[in-house]
C-alpha cells in the first residue's frame, strides 16, 4: 500500500494479495486488526506486552494492592519484584485472580517473603514448570491484580513490573 500526494490529489494504492501466498513482501500487504468478542463488546487483540508498571520504585511500609487489571487475550504473566533497599522490611508478592460475580479474589501464585535486596521473578503460565513460591502452571483469568503484603512496618524500597504473554 502506498499513499502519495500529487498536486491536489491524494492517491491511495492498495495491492491485493491472493490468499494462500507465503513470503509476500510486507509492504504489499494490507493489515487488518483482529478483535475478540468478550460477551458484551469487542476487545483489541494484543501482542506480548511488558513495561507494565504495577508499582514504581519507592520506599513503602504498608501492604500495596493493585487495582483490578484486565487480561484481554494473554495466557499468562511474568511479574518481577525488584527489591533495591530491603532494610529490615519484609514483602511478599501475590498474583491474584478475581471472580467478578462474587467479587472474591484468589491467589494464583504467592511468593516467599523477600527480606534482602534481590530481583524476584514470578511466572504464571499453563504448562510451566511448577516451583513453589516461584512459578505456577495455570492460566491468568480476565480479571487479575498483584498484591504486595508488608510483613512488618519497616520500610522497603522496591518496584513491581509485569509482562503479559500470549
Amino acid at each position, binding site marked *: 500500500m502506498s499513499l502519495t500526494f500529487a498536486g491536489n490529489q491524494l492517491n491511495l494504492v492498495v495491492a491485493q494479495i491472493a490468499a494462500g501466498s507465503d513470503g509476500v513482501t510486507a509492504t504489499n500487504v494490507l493489515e487488518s486488526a483482529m478483535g475478540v468478542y468478550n460477551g458484551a463488546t469487542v476487545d483489541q487483540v494484543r501482542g506480548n506486552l511488558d513495561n507494565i508498571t504495577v508499582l514504581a520504585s519507592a520506599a513503602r511500609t504498608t501492604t500495596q494492592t493493585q487495582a483490578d487489571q484486565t487480561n484481554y487475550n494473554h495466557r499468562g504473566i511474568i511479574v518481577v519484584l525488584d527489591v533495591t533497599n530491603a532494610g529490615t522490611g519484609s514483602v511478599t508478592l501475590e498474583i491474584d485472580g478475581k471472580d467478578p460475580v462474587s467479587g472474591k479474589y484468589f491467589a494464583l501464585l504467592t511468593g516467599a517473603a523477600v527480606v534482602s535486596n534481590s530481583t524476584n521473578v514470578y511466572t504464571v503460565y499453563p504448562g510451566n*514448570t511448577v516451583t513453589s513460591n516461584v512459578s505456577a502452571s495455570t492460566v491468568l483469568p480476565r480479571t487479575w491484580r498483584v498484591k504486595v503484603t508488608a510483613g512488618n512496618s519497616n520500610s522497603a524500597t522496591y518496584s513491581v513490573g509485569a509482562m503479559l504473554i500470549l
Partner: protein
Amino acid sequence: MTNVANIVTNGIAPPVYLVDASSGSPLTNTDGVVLLASGAVTANSNSVLLTNYVARGVKVYIAPGNFGSGASTITVTIQGFDPVSASYFTILQSASLTASTFAVLTVYPGIAVTANVSASDVLPRSWRVSWQASSWGTGGSTLGIAAALIL
C-alpha cells in the same frame, strides 16, 4: 507497512499478516534471527535487547567454532528483561560448551525439562542472550548464535 512496535506501542491490535523477522511476525514462526554473527569473540558480552511480539518460546542455536589457545569452555544464557526495574533475569543457561560442538537451548511452556538444555517457561517480550567464558583464548574463540521464535 506499519511497524509492529508502533502498532503495539499505540495500543492497536497486531495485524493479521506479517511475514518477516525485521518487522516482527505475529502469526508465523520465525527463524534465522542472528543474535551473534559467527566470528572471533574475545570478551564476555551479550546480544542487543530483542522484542518478542507474540511468540511463547524460543530455540537458541549455539555454534562454537575453533577456540583460541588457552580458551576455557563457554556458556550462553537466555535472559529476560524487566523494563520497569531495568533488571535482567536468567531463563536458561547452557552447559559448559567446547569448541565446534553445536548446542540448542529451548524455552517453551510445557516441554520436558532438561538441565542446561530446555526449560518449561515462557519468553517475555524483552529478552537477550549473553555469552561468557573465563578465558576466550589467544585471538579469541569463534562463536555464532541464532534463534528461532515459536508461537
